[in-house]
């Protein structure tokens, strides 16, 4: 439709574009600029060129952070998708019980990360947490220190994350399952296919776009984990759970290194762009397939 007045669309979009410019475009430009300086917010900034990037690479921090984030995110995505799919299959039925359990699982998605973090901090407490006590009932010695052992902490945090976001995968898979035509499933059943076979040859292929969607959105979301790390482990022990966002936060607020934090944020943004680009490509090939 033609606008009533030629300038109308621009006025309608003005607030949005204004905020967009101030809070998205401008910061991105600033981010790149800051990354070329050394600045602690209290004293004047000093130009250092690419020194921040070099320092991040040389100290191995960047690789470590990237590795930690990637491994935790992979576990989180695979874990939540698996449990989400299994639960969707289990709960895709009418009835009050199923509806109640669906709500229970999804409710974890709705509360804040702080809630969940504090809750599991208590549950996983190696001394008086209930899981530790149950563990020591069934085996000798004391429970492993899930959050204090550098080898275990990332997986403990990943497990908590999976607990929280399974609800998301559940809901998406449920709506994906609705799209599977009942008639095809019934035909397969009449042909004598077992539940497993029905799943493998009918449901699973039809779920592929849904699966891709959940996988990529979960991956991008889990790359942005912060709250749960901050509340439960503060990036430790020994940086075992220092994921990207936490590393940037630490650089900026605890170490007051604006330049280095900005450099790390630029790298992080690049990683996100790559992941999102991969998502688009996958969808493109999916649609053309």
């Amino acid at each position, binding site marked *: 439709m033609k606008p009533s007045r030629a300038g109308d669309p621009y006025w309608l979009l003005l607030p949005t574009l204004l905020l967009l410019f101030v809070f998205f475009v401008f910061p991105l430009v600033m981010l790149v600029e800051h990354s070329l300086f050394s600045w*602690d917010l209290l004293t004047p900034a000093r130009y250092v060129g690419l020194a921040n990037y070099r320092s991040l690479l040389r100290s191995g921090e960047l690789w470590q952070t990237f590795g930690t984030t990637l491994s935790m995110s992979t576990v989180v995505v695979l874990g939540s998708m698996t449990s989400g799919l299994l639960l969707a299959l289990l709960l895709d039925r009418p009835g009050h019980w199923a509806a109640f359990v669906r709500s229970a699982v999804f409710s974890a998605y709705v509360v804040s990360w702080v809630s969940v973090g504090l809750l599991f901090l208590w549950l996983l407490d*190696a001394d008086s947490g209930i899981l530790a006590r149950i563990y020591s009932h069934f085996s000798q010695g004391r429970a492993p220190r899930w*959050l204090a052992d550098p080898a275990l902490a990332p997986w403990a945090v990943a497990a908590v994350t999976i607990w929280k976001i399974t609800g998301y995968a559940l809901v998406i898979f449920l709506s994906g399952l609705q799209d599977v035509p009942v008639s095809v499933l019934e035909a397969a059943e009449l042909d004598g296919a077992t539940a497993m076979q029905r799943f493998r040859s009918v449901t699973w292929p039809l779920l592929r776009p849904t699966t891709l969607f959940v996988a990529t959105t979960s991956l991008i979301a889990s790359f942005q984990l912060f709250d749960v790390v901050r509340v439960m*482990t503060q990036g430790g*022990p*020994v940086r075992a759970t220092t994921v990207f966002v936490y590393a940037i936060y630490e650089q900026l607020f605890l170490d*007051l290194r604006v330049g280095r934090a900005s450099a790390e944020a630029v790298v992080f943004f690049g990683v996100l762009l790559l992941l999102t680009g991969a998502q688009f490509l996958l969808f493109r090939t999916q649609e053309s397939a």
Partner: protein
Amino acid sequence: MRARRTATASTPRVQDMLARREFLRATAVAGSGLLGASCAVNAVPKGRTLVSLWFSYGGTNREVLEQLVDRFNRTQARDFVQAVYQGDYFEGLAKLRTAIAARCAPVLSHVVGEVVPYLAEAGVLEPLTDYPGLADLDLIPELGQQRSWLNGGTHPLYALPFNRSTPIAYLNAELFAQAGLEAPRTWDELRTVAKRLTEPKAGGRFGFGCPINWWFWVALVGQAGGAIVAPDGRIALGDGAGVAALELWQELVREGSLKPPPGRDYNAWEQCNQDFLSGRAAMIWSSTAFLKYLEAHARFKLLAAPLPAGVRRAVPTGGTFWIVLRSAPKPEKAAAARFLRFMHETQQVIDWSTRTGYIPVTHSAVRALEQRNYYGAHPNDRVALSQLSVAEPWPWSVDLFRIQREIVQPRLESAVIQQRDARALLVEARALAMEPT
């Protein structure tokens, strides 16, 4: 045409909903606008100067501070101190620095000694020399600016001691008596005692618990004869003594007699205290700051003891200093100075110290306590005070805090928890410390 319009017009209920939503949004933005108008909008008794104080204690120490603040507010009508809790020392310091940068800083706060030179050189601290009464408090020099830093007296007065401490050892007196052992006075004795008191079975008791923390490492470095910063300004990190300190910890962990508590920063200290209270560690190193807390919660008799000697005895001092922020308006700074004078009066110093375990910071307070035989009745309180004779000053170095937090602390954890090579780590640390930021 008219019919069409009424057909598409919204029903009253939806109109209401829309109107309500717009109203809510308008209120929200208006409300936020009002609240956003300034950084500091407070409910202060009329006519008083507001002193915003940001502090970083929890638990009992917090209660005592709040009571002292309350006492100040009640006993005079000129000023009003509003104390805001900001998390632990590091979280609080982070917020303070960002608030300074955002021009939202409070008037008064307290910070660890290692960061004072940095803040002073950055020009954000108010010199206190000219405020009435602050330059001539009868402070114990090791606790005041004069001797807390090398040549501290040559700088303008920026920091006044608040909660000051030294590391001390806490012993489970019953376990020690049972084993016929005494507080270790040397590193060798420490090794032996720790081993003797360790029960090797799974889930058994450890002889020694110590947070793997910069502060205790610095103590060990001093005891091994080294210094963090060499007299010529070179960041030595103790050189050989630094390695020896780390290796002592590593050795004790390998032998199974040291339990490095989990968690970071003050979580680790807390965990260490819990280990001691529950009997999982027979002896721990912690701060005199926890003396009252531990005494109150221990179900056994506990003894405080000084730290052992390596080639000599040495301890750093700890705790925090009061600082006044230069960016605050003049009247508020003057009010803050009045509060600081109040906090250094003998009664307040005594109250603070005896209820928390921190060292009293003025001579008059110590004298008063001795007169009423406080230390006779509470010998544990004397330990930190006596250790002041071997207290080492910090270097007045702007990089000290950065070196502590970014470079050394993570490597300490790495060395002890992951048993990496101490010498290599410290060489790495020294190299990083020399890099310009």
